[in-house]
C-alpha cells in the first residue's frame, strides 16, 4: 500500500513538473507584441542599493524604447518588458533564479544581475542554455577569461578602474621634471576578487613605468580599520596612494585619511560616489581621484536619450530622490539599448542569430561607445577619472574627456 502511494505521489509530481515545463515553453520569449527579457537582481540584501539603481536603469530604457516606437523586428513593432526576480544578493539564489527564468518562464534574452559575484554565478547558467546575456554590473576581469560565448558586458572591466591614476601620476611627474620611475606608490586593496582585479591593473601599470611600491596591503574583507596601513603611509611618504575596497573601503579610507591627516600629493579611491564620501567627510576629501564608468558631464550622445546630460535630467525627472545619477543606472540603460539594437539588426528572435548580432555591436550611446571584444567585454569606452574639487566631482582624465585641470598636489585638510 505504502509503495503504491509513493509511486502515485511520484507520478503526480512528475506530471506537475511536466505541466510547468509545458506551460513555461508556451509562455515563451515573445508574448503577442511584447519581447520578454529576464533578470535576477538584488532588490534586497547587501547589494540592494545598487541593485535598485540598476533596475531603475533597465526600466527607464524600456520605457523610453516603448515610447519611441519600440523594437522593430520583421517590419513589426514590439514592446519590451523585463521580468525580475529578487536574488537577495546571494549568488546561489541568483543562479537558481536564472534557471527558473530560462526553464520555467521561457525567457530567452537575459539582462545581468548586480555585482561581479552574482554575474559569475549566473553566467554558467545562461551559457549552459545558450541564452545571450547582456550585463551591465559585473566588471571583474575573471568573467571574461572563462571563454563564455553568450556573455556581453557594456562596462569597462575592473583592471582599468585605477590604472589611469598611475598614468596621470607619471604625466604629472614628467611635467615637474621628475622621472616616473622615481615615484613611490602605496597600495591598499581589499582581499576580494573585484578589488584584486583592480590591483592587478594598477600593478601592471606600475611595473610598466618602473615605479616603486612601498606599501602593498590587502585589507581583510571584515576589516573596518586601516590605521596601521595609513601609519605606514605616513612614515614612507609615497607620491601616490591607491585604495579600493567597495563602499566600505572608501568610507573607511576617507574617514581615517581625514582623522590622521594623511598628506599624500595624490590619492585615488574607488567607490567614492557610492560611499558618499563628500557628504560624509566634507572638505577633507578634496583632491581625491575617483574612477567612474560614466559621468553626466561627458560629451557622449545618441539618438534615443540624447546626450549624457539629457539622460541625467530624464532620470532625475523619472525617479525621485536622486541627487546624482549613479553610473550603475546609466550602464543598465545602455544594456537594454544593446538588446534593442541587436534585435533590429538580427531581425529575428533566434537566440544564436541574436548572439552574433550582439557580438557585432558597434554603437555610440549616451553612456559611451559599445563594441565587444571576443571575450565579451566592452573595449570602446574608457574609464574616466574624476577629482573631488570643492565638493564637486570634475572629470580630470583622460585628457580627451577632461573638463577641469587636475589639482596637484593635494593638500590635507
Amino acid at each position, binding site marked *: 500500500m505504502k509503495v503504491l502511494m509513493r509511486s502515485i505521489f511520484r507520478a503526480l509530481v512528475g506530471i506537475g513538473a511536466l505541466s510547468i515545463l509545458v506551460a513555461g515553453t508556451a509562455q515563451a520569449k515573445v508574448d503577442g507584441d511584447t519581447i520578454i527579457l529576464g533578470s535576477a537582481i538584488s532588490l*534586497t*540584501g*547587501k*547589494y*540592494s*542599493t545598487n541593485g535598485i539603481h540598476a533596475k531603475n536603469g533597465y526600466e527607464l530604457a524600456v520605457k523610453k524604447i516603448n515610447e519611441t516606437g519600440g523594437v522593430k523586428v520583421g517590419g513589426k513593432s514590439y514592446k519590451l518588458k523585463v521580468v525580475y526576480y529578487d536574488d537577495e*544578493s546571494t549568488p546561489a539564489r541568483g543562479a537558481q533564479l536564472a534557471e527558473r527564468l530560462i526553464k520555467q518562464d521561457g525567457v530567452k534574452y537575459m539582462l545581468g544581475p548586480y555585482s561581479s559575484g552574482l554575474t559569475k554565478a549566473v553566467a554558467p547558467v545562461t551559457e549552459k542554455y545558450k541564452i545571450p546575456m547582456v550585463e551591465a554590473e559585473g566588471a571583474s576581469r575573471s568573467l571574461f577569461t572563462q571563454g563564455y560565448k553568450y556573455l556581453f558586458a557594456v562596462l569597462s572591466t575592473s583592471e582599468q578602474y585605477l590604472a589611469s591614476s598611475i598614468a596621470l601620476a607619471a604625466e604629472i611627474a614628467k611635467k615637474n621634471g621628475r622621472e616616473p620611475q622615481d615615484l613611490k606608490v602605496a597600495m*591598499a586593496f581589499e*582581499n576580494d576578487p573585484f578589488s584584486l582585479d583592480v590591483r592587478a591593473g594598477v600593478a601592471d601599470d606600475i611595473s610598466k613605468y618602473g615605479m616603486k611600491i612601498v606599501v*602593498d*596591503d*590587502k*585589507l*581583510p574583507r*571584515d*576589516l*573596518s*580599520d*586601516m*590605521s*596601521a*596601513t595609513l*601609519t*605606514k603611509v*605616513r*612614515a*614612507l611618504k609615497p607620491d601616490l596612494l591607491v585604495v579600493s575596497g567597495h*563602499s*566600505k573601503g572608501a*568610507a*573607511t579610507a576617507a*574617514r581615517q585619511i581625514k*582623522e*590622521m*591627516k594623511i598628506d599624500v600629493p595624490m590619492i585615488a579611491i574607488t567607490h567614492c560616489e*557610492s*560611499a*558618499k564620501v563628500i557628504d*560624509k*567627510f566634507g572638505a577633507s576629501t578634496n583632491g581625491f581621484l575617483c574612477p567612474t564608468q560614466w559621468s553626466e558631464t561627458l560629451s557622449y550622445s545618441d539618438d534615443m536619450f540624447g546626450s549624457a546630460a539629457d539622460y541625467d535630467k530624464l532620470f532625475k525627472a523619472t525617479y525621485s530622490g536622486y541627487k546624482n545619477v549613479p553610473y550603475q543606472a546609466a550602464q543598465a540603460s545602455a544594456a537594454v539599448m544593446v538588446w534593442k539594437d541587436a534585435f533590429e539588426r538580427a531581425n529575428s528572435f533566434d537566440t544564436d542569430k541574436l548572439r552574433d548580432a550582439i557580438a557585432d555591436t558597434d554603437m555610440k550611446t549616451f553612456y559611451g561607445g559599445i563594441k565587444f571584444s571576443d571575450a565579451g567585454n566592452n573595449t570602446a569606452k574608457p574609464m574616466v577619472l574624476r577629482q573631488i574639487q570643492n565638493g564637486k566631482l570634475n572629470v580630470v582624465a583622460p585628457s580627451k574627456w577632461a573638463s577641469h585641470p587636475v589639482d596637484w598636489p593635494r593638500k590635507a585638510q
Partner: protein
Amino acid sequence: MLDNLLVLIQAPVLNIQLLLDGVLIGAIFAMAAYGLALVWGVMNVKNLAQGDFVIMGGYIAYTFTKFGLHPIYALPVAFVGMFGFGWLVYVTIIRRVIGKDLFTSLLATFGLAILLQQAMNLIFGSDVQTAESGFQTRFFFDGMVSIAEIKFVALVLAVGLSAAVVVFMKRSRMGQAIRATSQDARAARVLGINTDRVYAFTFSLNSAICGAAGVLIAMIWVIQPYFGVVYSIRSFIIVTVAGLGNLTAVIVTALGLGAAEQFSAFILGAEFQVASVVCILVAVLIWRQIQQARKRQVVE
C-alpha cells in the same frame, strides 16, 4: 616585512602610534567581549547575535546625527534602549533555549542575527554609514603620532562603563545574585534567588553594553547592517583567550590583542591583521591543553 620592521626601528615614535591605536581599538572590543563573557558565563548561552546588537547601537547613533543631534548623546539612549530590547529578546527567545544543548542556543541566536541584519537592511538600507562626531585629531612628535579625540573619548567611556559594571557585579544585590547564579544556578534557586530574573537582567545588561559600544563604533569607524559578524567573532576570540569568569582578563586580553593586531598589520601587512589574532588564539589553546595535561598527571 623586514623593510617595515626597519621603519619601526628607525622611527621609534611609530611604535607609540601603533600601541595607542591598538589599545584604543582594544577598549571597544573589550566592551562587546565583556558582555559576551557575562552571558556565556552566567547563562551558558553563546550569543551569535552579539555583533548585531553592537551594530544596532551604531544605528541609534547614526539616527541621532540624522536629526542633527550629536551622536554622543545617543550613548545613554542606546544603553537604555538596548537594555529594553535585550529583555524582549530574553523573554521571547533566550528563555526557551537556556539549559538546552549547545546547538539549540547557537541556532536560535544565529537566527536572531540574520533577522536583525535583514531588519536593519530594510530600515537603514545597505549603504555604509558613519556618525560624524566632529571631534578633532591631536598631533604629537611632529605630526608622526596622531590621536583622534573621539578614540580617546571612547576609551574613557569604555573604561568608565567597564569599571561601573565591575563595581555593580561586586557590590549590588543583583550583581551578587548574578555571580551566585553563575556559580551554581540550582543552589541559587534553592536560596531564593529568582534565576529567571537574573538571566533576563544579565542578557539585557549585555545588550545594553553592546549598544553603547555600537555608538562608539559608529563614531570611530563605519557601520553597515552586515558588519555585526566581525564584532561577534572578535568577542568570541577574546573571551576564548581570556577564559570565562575573569572579567579583568577579558579587558586585558582585548587591549593586548588590539595592540598585537596593529603591530602585525604594520609589519606583516593588513592581510595578517586578523590572522595574527587567530594565531594567538590557537597558541593559547595549545598552551592551555599542555597545562591541563600536566594537571591531570599530577592528579593521577
